[in-house]
């Protein structure tokens, strides 16, 4: 079993596809169900799309994590883009500044078990999400 970290550079819409395929492959390898692997791949797709739309480039990192009694997948989406000024607003359904659907972040939070976001205007954004194996 692969223990290392998989890092996918996100520079274009093609990379969104690559990132979600790698995420699905890792989730399957870790023993996630097809349904959960789909949720994970969908979340990665949204996170990678946010990078392309708002920051133009960044990175998605995928890794296995151990909880006290369970295994999971850890996904970190990071960029050095403009950052998010009002995180609370960005976490509301329907909010968007790029003319997209604006469901990205709250939707991703619903797809995953744990969700954390840090962002500094002018510095970038880091979204960290986890999903645990049932």
């Amino acid at each position: 079993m692969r223990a290392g970290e998989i890092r996918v550079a996100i520079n274009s819409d093609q990379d969104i596809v690559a990132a979600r395929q790698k995420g699905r492959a890792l989730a399957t390898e870790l023993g996630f169900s097809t349904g959960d692997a789909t949720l994970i791949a969908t979340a990665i797709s949204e996170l990678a799309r946010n990078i392309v739309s708002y920051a133009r480039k960044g990175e998605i990192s995928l890794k296995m994590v151990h909880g006290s009694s369970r295994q999971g997948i850890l996904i970190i989406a990071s960029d050095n883009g403009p950052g998010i000024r009002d995180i609370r607003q960005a976490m509301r359904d329907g909010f968007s500044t790029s003319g997209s659907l604006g469901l990205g972040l709250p939707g991703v939070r619903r797809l995953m078990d744990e969700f954390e976001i840090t962002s500094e205007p002018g510095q970038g954004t880091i979204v960290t999400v986890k999903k645990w194996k049932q």
Partner: protein
Amino acid sequence: MEVPILKQGEVLIATFQAALSDADLEHLRRGLVQQVVRFRSRGVIVDVTAMDVMDSFASRTLREIAHMIRLRGAETVIVGIQPEVAFAMVQLGLTLEGVATALDLEEGLAYLIEKFKNID
């Protein structure tokens, strides 16, 4: 990646592959609308059975395709959304409001034929 578009009488059938990028989806949207005009098609079936992820961009593009085609006076049916994909879409808050869906190609064709009957 090219999406094959088949012509079956008055209906066009587009079959999506698993790994479509945003650019592929936009290309398909243009292609489908052009072909609907060219062949004077009355119905379009978009088969997404092979799609493993339907994210916000993909569902928005599907909705736009259906609405553009409706403005041309034709009907669109999305067929083959996989159960786990449907589950992820609901969790993400994505809907295909105003777009007809059917279980598979066969049901999609049956839906269109029924629609055509009502119009004729």
